[in-house]
């Protein structure tokens, strides 16, 4: 479904991604793990067209997307829940959700999806008119996921959704991610530092170090891999 081939992304003269090749099949949950500064966020931003690659190719459902603008990429059904949640702080919960559906014009269906995310996260319905910036961290993460869902993505990119959250909330968020994948058939590409939980959830995993992919395997195999256990699972 999504294919990155020898992607190289730069910030000025600094090369952040060095020959990154990633393949994601439709319906999969794939995780990308790696240490701080490995290039995980850059990978997602390259897919979304925010930091387009200087070399290499990104294809979605067979057609190249690495020269498209972010809004064109969103239109194809690729949505991101970015690192740090990035809620619009001065907009209400409902307005934030409406922004997620920015490129859609089917008013009735948008309304239906609003009810759908309120079903998923009832707390958001209680907070409908509250400003995004005043929500708690967990609520913001729920809102960020919901905002992405409002676009009806075919491929959902999540950047460290567990960051800074209490274990109970992390559990809940991971459950929801699984549910989105199973019930909507949405393909998931999950970036995580929380390697243990991410690998338990995912079908396959990639390990990234210093802008390179160093390991690819079934998630269960990575969980059993000695190097991975030492470096990322703290065992």
């Amino acid at each position, binding site marked *: 479904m999504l294919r990155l081939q020898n992607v190289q992304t730069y910030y000025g003269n600094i090369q952040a991604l060095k020959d990154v090749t990633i393949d994601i099949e439709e319906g999969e949950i794939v995780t990308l793990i790696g240490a701080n500064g490995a290039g995980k966020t850059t990978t997602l931003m390259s897919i979304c067209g925010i930091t387009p690659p200087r070399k290499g190719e990104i294809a979605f459902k067979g057609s190249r997307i690495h020269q498209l*603008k972010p809004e064109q990429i969103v239109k194809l059904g690729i949505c991101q829940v970015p690192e*740090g949640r*990035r809620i619009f702080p001065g*907009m209400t919960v409902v307005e934030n959700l409406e922004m997620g559906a920015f490129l859609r014009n089917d008013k009735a269906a948008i309304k239906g999806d609003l009810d759908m995310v309120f079903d998923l996260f009832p707390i958001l319905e209680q907070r409908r008119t509250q400003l995004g910036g005043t929500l708690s961290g967990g609520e913001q993460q729920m809102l960020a996921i919901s905002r992405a869902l409002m676009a009806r993505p075919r491929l959902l990119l999540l950047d460290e959704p567990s960051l800074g959250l209490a274990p109970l909330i992390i559990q809940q968020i991971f459950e929801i991610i699984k549910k989105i994948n199973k019930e909507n058939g949405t393909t998931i590409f999950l970036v995580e530092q929380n390697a243990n939980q991410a690998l338990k959830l995912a079908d396959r995993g990639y390990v990234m170090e210093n802008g390179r992919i160093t390991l690819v395997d079934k998630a269960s195999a990575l969980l059993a891999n000695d190097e991975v256990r030492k470096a990322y699972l703290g065992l």
Partner: protein
Amino acid sequence: MEYFIELFLSGLTRGSIYALIALGYTMVYGIIQLINFAHGEIYMIGAFVAYIVCGVMTIYGFHGVSVLIIAGMLAIIYSCAYGYTLEKVAYRPLRGAPRLSPLISAIGMSIFLQNYVLLAQTSDFLPFPALIPDFEFMEPVAHIIGSAELVILITTLVTMILLTLLIKYTKIGKAMRATQQDMSMARLVGINVDQVISVTFIIGSALAAIGGVLVASYIGQVNFYIGFLAGVKAFTAAVLGGIGSVPGAVIGGLVLGLTESFAAGYISSDYEDVFAFGLLVLILILRPSGIMGRTTKQKV
């Protein structure tokens, strides 16, 4: 007491014009953190277009408010075209460059537009016809507020209400707010931020043109330099209110207009600028980010 009310109303009139122009500065700053120094020139161009249209229409025998309305419409269209082009030519190519570059470009465009009008038109003060008639129903209060002032107050009020509704409820308004709060996130939800920036310049230019036409017909003259003077005042109002904040621009404009009016009325008109800028300094000492400015810029 009557004198007080008179000063109050004239301060409000003046302030509402400052506010109208300040909105253009503040909306652009809110989205791309650029002080658009050429904004005053857009206002001046609006006034000039109205001047030319009025001249032509008067030759053909039209009079009064209908001329003002048509001249105003054309002024808005022209100013919007200039504002849109300005952003596209002078600022868009510098997106992502160090902040000083677009600022210098803005100053350059300001000088360029002034001289362009100076050469294409004249350096003289041109008489602008008084297009707002003295309404009969205003007679009993004419010693406190003139008809022209009433028209300015009503026009600016209606414009600001429309702007508020636009920002709050329309799709483009929400896109503007989203872009202002987090530009790259706005792009991630599919907002075309280039388009949003263009629309912001167009709206700001329309407001400036309305201001330019109203002031020209109120004061009765136009000149290539009026944009610079009005721009400095409006920019002061925007900073006073908290640059980047829409309600701040309105409050800043009104506070500045009232201060000037009272200073001129009770002390001497020689001192109105001293008080205006004194107030600015005072407020910036007490509240460095302006009256309505956010004290901390937090991005969660």
